[in-house]
């Protein structure tokens, strides 16, 4: 097996150097750090869609299930009645990112027109693709959260999306090991490669490359190789897929320091067949969110400048089904209202907001935090959030 001469320390060092060269045009970490809106302290946002259908009864309604979120709520704002709808997991989670309630098929794997939070931010604030990430757990369908197809926005403003379990699993690792990791290219070889690429297709590659962010693609390629050799691949347990998405988010924050990191969880949907399994996923995900949060708080650059939003896409039925599981489709308040925690330097501390608000209000709120305009979103800014 070939050994890829890649080490985490070296990658972090080069990432930091690249970040330091923040104003150099063309580099992937081109955005200088600092608040994006005058009068705000927030430089980054982590938005966790605690999706898969999670009732408040098993989170803030059961002391001890979510100790980390409880602490986060005590240091931030807890919204206890966030209105949502059963639009299917995919549709409801997409609504969180578009700010538009829209029904989507459960297995639908197509993009629609509505722009996402990531597109608003990238376009209005001229953020690089490496500034806006989303890690997921539900396979191909969830890469659609990256962007919509609106002619004013679309893929050129999408988030870099990575599915934790899809990539970092034992099966794919074994394929990689079977062939061996690629050799590192020498500078001379890279120059020869660029010469050939420069001529392909009539020599238009240079301009295309700039537009598609070739530098960033190369850095993502290096990151994937690095992550494939880490412990993320071997994570197991009831929430293994969700845990990988949260682990990736933690690693991305330390390496790329994105302006926005979205995380979409899904394992709680095991509730259809197992109430106990569902509660176990909630507990484990709370612990993994706690790890992510603590990593941010222990990083001097991130601690005072990063905000968190954590909320499910919808809840679940009020009553158990015949399999002693919990479906989602009864139209009850348990299904249609969820809790949301917001924590960050610009938010109130220890506040509990019991007014009705909506999960589709989160995207406009983050846009407001950064000074972007969610042109097509139907939601509005969360009330009683800011200090």
């Amino acid at each position, binding site marked *: 097996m*070939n050994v890829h001469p890649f080490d985490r320390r070296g990658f972090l060092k080069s990432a930091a150097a690249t970040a330091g060269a923040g104003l150099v045009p063309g580099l992937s970490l081109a955005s200088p750090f600092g608040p994006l809106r005058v009068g705000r302290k927030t430089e980054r946002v982590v938005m966790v869609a605690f999706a898969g259908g999670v009732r408040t009864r098993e989170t803030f309604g059961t002391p001890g299930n979510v100790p980390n979120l409880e602490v986060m709520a005590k240091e931030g704002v807890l919204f206890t009645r966030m209105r949502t709808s059963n*639009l*299917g997991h995919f549709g409801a989670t997409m609504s969180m990112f578009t700010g538009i309630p829209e*029904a989507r*098929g*459960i*297995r*639908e794997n197509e993009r629609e027109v509505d722009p996402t939070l990531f597109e608003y931010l990238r376009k209005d604030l001229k953020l690089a693709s490496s500034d806006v990430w*989303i890690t997921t757990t539900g*396979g*191909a*369908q969830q*890469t659609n959260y*990256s*962007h919509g197809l609106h002619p004013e926005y679309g*893929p050129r403003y999408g*988030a*870099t*999306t*990575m*599915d934790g379990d*899809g*990539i970092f*699993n034992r*099966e*794919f690792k*074994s*394929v*990689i090991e079977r*062939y*061996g*990791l*690629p*050799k590192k290219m*020498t500078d*001379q*070889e890279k120059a*020869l490669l660029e*010469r*050939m*690429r*420069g*001529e*392909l*297709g*009539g020599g238009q*590659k240079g301009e*295309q490359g700039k537009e*598609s962010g070739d530098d960033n*693609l*190369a850095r993502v*390629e290096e990151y*994937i190789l690095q992550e494939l050799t880490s412990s993320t691949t071997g994570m197991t347990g009831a929430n293994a897929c969700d845990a990988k998405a949260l682990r990736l988010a933690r690693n991305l924050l330390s390496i790329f320091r994105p302006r926005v990191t979205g995380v979409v969880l899904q394992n709680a949907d095991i509730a*259809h*067949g197992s109430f106990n399994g569902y509660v176990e996923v909630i507990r484990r995900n709370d612990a993994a969110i706690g790890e992510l949060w603590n990593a941010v708080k222990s990083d001097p650059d991130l601690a005072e400048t990063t905000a968190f939003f954590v909320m499910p896409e919808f809840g679940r039925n009020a009553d158990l089904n015949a*399999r002693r*599981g919990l*479906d*989602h*489709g009864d139209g009850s308040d348990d299904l249609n209202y969820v809790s949301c925690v917001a924590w960050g330097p610009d938010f109130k501390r220890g506040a509990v907001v019991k007014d009705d608000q909506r999960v589709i209000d989160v995207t406009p709120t983050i846009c407001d935090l950064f000074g972007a305009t969610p042109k097509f979103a139907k939601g509005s800014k969360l009330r009683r959030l800011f200090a």
Partner: protein
Amino acid sequence: MPNAPWSSLQDPLPPAQTEGRTEARPARALDDESLRAIYYDLLGRPPFPAERERWMDVERHDLLDVLLGSVPFWTHWWEEQLYYFLLIDNFRPANDDARAVPGKLAEKRLSVRDALRRIAMTPTFDLRNPGADTFVTVVMEQFVGMRVQKSARELEIGKGAYDGRAGRFLGQPAASQSDVVRIAVEHKNATRYFLSREYERYVRRHPKTNQPFVRGLLVDLLGRLPTHDEVEPMRNALDGLSDSRPLRSVLVRLLLDSGDVPVPEKSSIADLFRRLLGREPADAELGAFVQTFHDPACRSTTVLYALLSNPEYHNS
């Protein structure tokens, strides 16, 4: 439509049958571009070298007559359907009945509608879509193309039928899970929806999706199709990225550096263009590639990498 007696996608094509064939070049003769396009559309992979040799310059309809309705064609179709219903990995139906479907379709012992119905009746479809709400929703959405939020009453009736309560689901009497499936699959809108899906797949789908990319990459570089143990993890990993180019690049590099790829001759640049991109190189391209390939510092894999990492390879 003739059915070629092949048993799997791995089988080689039958030998050339040139007796009695005119020597003149047919009006719609196959070239590298059309040959690759037809193989990708119908079998989800490029032609093997022997197939390329066999069909080059042959009338296009001759190839279509052989491929359409063959076992490899239906095997590819079946895989596409399973992927559409997300019956992959642990949810992939692996029983004998499911494995026999492409062969039965090729022998015309099974209709497309029956094949679709079998998908919904597999145990893994049930596992993939647990509970009345999810099961009936997915059946209504994926077979009939309905938006359940706009058909809440039908959904409730379907859920009742799933649980054994009699009702009229989509206009037909239903009292069981299998009734729900049968009525949905036979619904007139299901035919329209299926045809629209197939239109999207054959006519409008661009660029190349991840499964054909993986299959094509192994055919182009290793001269063989990937096994299920290879293709599923690779495709899943690629599907896990909104922009799969970085990981496609990783896969190309690891195959090229594995030592398993035959080294191309320095005189074969033009043929590499034809074989991998389906076209002749432009003079400037040929000049740059030949010059670079003769540079002592250039590895043969670098030449292949330049071609395989080009958007043209990924989109054609």
